[in-house]
């Protein structure tokens, strides 16, 4: 399936979605007034953008409407999408040009880290890269077996230790293996951890330091995986993971559901971290590059109208 078509498919089935209500509103309004702005703000909040960010977007919209002398409500939709696209654009590419380079994948529990790694490994391998996975979630039940299945599916190597062993040691071994085997990319899976747990965050800090020490001159990506179903707490998650491990990008997963993941707009605004990829399913090819315009379109559910 093509870019975002899966999301749209999901959105089509959204019952009672405020976004589609707003589309109705836009179609029925004859002039641009406060009520219209309020409905748009409501739609943004329903998409998990958060009230403060929704208000900020609507303020920009008011200014744009005034500045450009727009009077047709139909044009408003385009303007708001423009604003969101501008906010979200830039920084989507993965920086992995050195061999080896390292991708560290982190996030809270159950968001889709391991699955994303499986998909990404397959994708990079298709691009002709030699990939090694590091099974550094040594904590969760059967996490290593789960990653092994993904490694097999993708046809890439994996470095593993026993359950309960030191995750930093797994990463160290994977980096050593990557150097010895001339691999291009090492992708490190980590255990899910809540950002308010100090000891678990310290463990992550330790993994980061191992990578810094072993491959100081390599390209490194630290990807925070966020579940699109998550609400405003995702801002806290991003802030804490950024402080501990210096995230370079976000992977927004589960966009094949009905949630729209609007909280990434607040994260981009507050923390300046770009979204790099999106997850749209549980299959190996359900990973897509992030496209700011398509994301803005999906927020307002335009497809339904056509």
């Amino acid at each position, binding site marked *: 399936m093509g870019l975002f078509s899966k999301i749209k498919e*999901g959105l089509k*089935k*959204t*019952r*009672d979605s*405020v976004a589609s209500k707003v589309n109705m509103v836009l179609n029925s309004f004859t002039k641009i007034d406060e009520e219209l702005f309020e409905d748009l703000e*409501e739609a943004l*909040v*329903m*998409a*998990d953008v*958060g*009230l403060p960010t929704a208000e900020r977007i609507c303020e920009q919209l008011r200014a744009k409407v005034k500045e450009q002398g727009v009077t047709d409500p139909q044009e408003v939709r385009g303007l708001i999408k423009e604003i969101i696209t501008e906010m979200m654009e830039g920084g989507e590419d993965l920086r992995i040009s050195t061999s080896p380079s390292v991708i560290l994948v982190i996030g*809270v*529990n*159950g*968001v*889709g880290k391991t699955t994303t790694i*499986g998909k990404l490994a397959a994708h990079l391998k298709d691009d002709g890269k030699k990939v090694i996975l590091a099974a550094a979630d040594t*904590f*969760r*039940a*059967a*996490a290593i*077996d*789960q990653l*092994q*299945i*993904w490694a097999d599916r993708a046809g890439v190597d994996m470095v593993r230790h026993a359950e309960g062993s030191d995750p930093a040691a797994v990463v160290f071994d994977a980096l050593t293996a990557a150097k010895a085997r001339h691999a291009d990319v090492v992708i490190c899976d980590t255990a899910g951890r*809540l*950002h*308010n*747990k100090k000891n678990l965050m310290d463990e992550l800090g330790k993994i980061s330091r191992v990578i810094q020490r072993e491959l100081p001159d390599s390209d490194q990506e630290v990807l925070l995986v966020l*579940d699109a*179903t*998550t*609400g*405003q*707490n*995702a*801002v*806290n998650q991003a802030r804490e993971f950024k402080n501990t491990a210096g995230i370079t990008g976000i992977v927004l997963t*589960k966009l*094949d*559901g*009905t*949630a*729209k993941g609007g*909280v990434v707009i607040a994260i981009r605004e507050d923390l300046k971290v770009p979204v790099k990829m999106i997850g749209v399913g*549980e299959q190996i090819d359900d990973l897509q590059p992030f496209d700011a315009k398509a994301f803005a379109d999906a927020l307002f559910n335009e497809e339904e109208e056509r």
Partner: protein
Amino acid sequence: MAFEGLADKLSEAFKRLRSKGKLTESDVKQAMREVRLALLEADVNYKVAKDFVAKVTERSVGSEVMESLTPAQQVVKIVDEELTALMGGENTRIDMASKPPTIIMMCGLQGSGKTTHAAKLASLFKRQGHRPMLVACDIYRPAAITQLQVMGEKAGVPVFEMGQIDPVKIIKGAMRFGKDHGNDILILDTAGRLHIDEELMNELKRIKADVEPNEILLVVDAMTGQDAVNVAKAFDDALGITGVILTKLDGDTRGGAALSVRAVTGKPIKFIGAGEKIGDLEPFHPARMSSRILGMGDVLSLIEKA
């Protein structure tokens, strides 16, 4: 942190109310705007928050409150009462079958915590003197069965599996096995699925029709945003859930999803999960959740101050 600022704002709003001898309707409305913001920041669904604030406002501007000696206290009390009521006080117990086995089916979105909580429940029942058995019905997720086996071992509870065949067949097999081995409770761990995935939702409907579980528990991640209502409603419409388990409350989410889920399904939250370990399961306390959602340590102490 943003949320603390909000809690401060909220107590400010209540303090302002308190400082007035008599309240006007606009005083109340101003305070309610703050309450609404608190609810939205806590990921309470937009419509639920709107209805809630309307209801509290209606009660607050009534003559008993406005003309009472302590109007501000009354308003805070109404907020707390309504919130607690919305979350429901009554039945938090599991409905046991009059004739064993009791069958409990876990269901929910991907990664919400079904497998972990199936094992936690099993451990709880075991400690209560029952002889529970876990049944591996997730035939899709890589290493799902191994994960349940590891968790089952930690709980000291047997795990029944038949590989990746039709879940209904697995459950029938488990019922026969359980009968021979004296297991009085069967807990079904099902695969994570999207509420809009018709095929997989039908699988659950089929299980329901064939084995008539005593409990169908929806497992909801407490960090869920605005989409919680769509998810809960879809699962409830399809299956008639009997209760909810709210997970990952050991994070710093305010957990407004609790309110949304409760409001759209009317089904009780039976347990909360606050950790990855087998013992991290607690009964649900509506009053504590109410304080958490509003971002105040203790709403009642605010009433005393007011």
